């Protein structure tokens, strides 16, 4: 399958929150640790469902959730989502890699802003 390089700025992207410590229950939001990388995976909301995202990443697990963020906001924060093959799930047409395009000295601030921009799609229920 040929993939276009970049999803639309109007696209929402899903990221699974798979670790209890990636979720801040008192604030009801993810930790920046879910995004604080030079490259991470997400799924295009228009081509999947939150449950499918969760089932691909942590099938059968209780507790993990899904957050969504806006592709346009991500770009303004210098995160660059690109449609690329998910090597673990090659049939996942929704997959994007999100690249942080600035230098490492600004990564944590931008990841914090991206985390704060997230909407909770499936609330994590870690004990």
């Amino acid at each position, binding site marked *: 399958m040929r993939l276009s390089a970049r999803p639309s700025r109007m696209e929402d992207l899903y990221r699974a929150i*798979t670790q209890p410590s990636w979720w801040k229950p*008192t604030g009801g939001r993810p930790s920046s640790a879910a995004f604080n990388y030079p490259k991470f*995976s997400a799924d295009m909301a228009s081509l999947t469902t939150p449950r499918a995202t969760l089932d691909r990443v942590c099938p059968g697990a209780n507790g993990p959730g899904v957050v969504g963020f806006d592709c346009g906001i991500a770009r303004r924060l210098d995160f660059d989502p690109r449609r690329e093959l998910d090597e*673990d799930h090659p049939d996942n047409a929704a997959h994007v890699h999100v690249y942080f395009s600035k230098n490492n*000295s*600004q990564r944590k601030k931008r990841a914090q802003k991206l985390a704060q921009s997230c909407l909770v799609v499936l609330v994590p229920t870690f004990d």
Partner: protein
Amino acid sequence: MPPAILDDPSFSTDSTEDWGAEWRRATRTVVLFQPSLHAELDQLAALRPNWDGYGAPRLDRAIIDAARRFVDRLPEDVSRRPTIVPMSPGNLQFEWHEGQRVLELEFETADTIHYLKWDPAEKVEDENTFPVADAGQAEELIRWFTKSR
């Protein structure tokens, strides 16, 4: 290492022990949560590959060891327990949160901490690196978080 009094059934407000002595014990808070931080590091060290569902490797042993030494050096009067957060490349960070205020100390390597001081109300967005061996810098950052509450 002194016992963790939160786990000590003899620690209660009904104790017949001298109240002042009990208070002095209670304010040495970091001593209380040191054992639980070490236990948390034990759990993180046992994480299997793909622990995040996105293909993460095991956590780097040298970084776990550096984090243990960091825990042992935390100032005794730190009153807020951090969360230790595993990160997908195999490193970890210590996080303190209160409302929108955040302090992150990320062990990028066993030798380097990358920190974030974050307080939107005070327009603080400070990010930089320092050597893990610089305990004074770490203490200053933790005191920024705990004292500006």
